[in-house]
């Protein structure tokens, strides 16, 4: 297993390390990488979903995840020095979910109001404002 060619990107070094994984839908997972394959399918253990809103964050325990590779944007080993909670303020799951909902509602409301006004003028909501970059 240690015979893969040098200079080749591989996730084998990341095995059993604590990783931050960014998914295509923007969610971030933190967990221990237990297994990986050629598609970058990931098996994560002790996973939490971390939600950031401004300077605050909260963790939702998720357990074991198998993430299909195509949904992975990037991942990296958590730098113990960098992870320190002092950078951000940890809040409860309930609080962070409420904050996240506020943030999302504001976005949706803004988009809806623009869409309504454009519709009245017989125009279509610009599809490019919709996040479909990964499709």
């Amino acid at each position, binding site marked *: 297993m240690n015979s893969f060619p040098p200079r080749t990107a591989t996730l084998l070094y990341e095995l059993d390390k604590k990783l931050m994984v960014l998914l295509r839908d923007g969610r971030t997972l933190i967990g221990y990488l237990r297994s990986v394959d050629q598609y970058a399918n990931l098996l994560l253990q002790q996973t939490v979903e971390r939600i950031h809103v401004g300077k605050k964050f909260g963790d939702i325990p998720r357990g074991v995840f198998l993430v299909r590779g195509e949904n992975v944007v990037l991942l990296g080993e958590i730098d113990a020095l960098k992870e320190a909670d002092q950078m951000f303020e940890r809040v409860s799951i309930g609080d962070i979910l409420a904050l996240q909902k506020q943030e999302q509602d504001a976005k949706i409301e803004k988009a809806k109001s*623009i869409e309504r006004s*454009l519709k009245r*003028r017989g125009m279509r909501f*610009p599809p*490019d*404002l919709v996040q479909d*970059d990964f499709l």
Partner: protein
Amino acid sequence: MVTKMPEGEAEPVSLVTIKEPVDLIRLSVDERIYVKMRHDRELRGRLHAFDQHLNMVLGEAEETITTIEVDEETFEEVYKTTKRTIPMLFVRGDGVILVSPPSTTS
């Protein structure tokens, strides 16, 4: 731009012909080409390399992004273009919509 062969003559192997779409791009190596990308992005640059996925390396690449912004008060659509130049740029092929050779690129 397909080179026609006289009938009955064997095709000389050394001749540059367009047999498949990417052959057109092969003829544009070291020329300035135009690339239309997904999400209203356009590129103009010197083609240094490409492969069958239309991954490319462009030199002196000028990118133009067109965005529609909606004025929050008047709700008018404003088209904005932003430009930037990147000296050496690798472009992933899955975002490419079309490639246009230099003869049609201003």
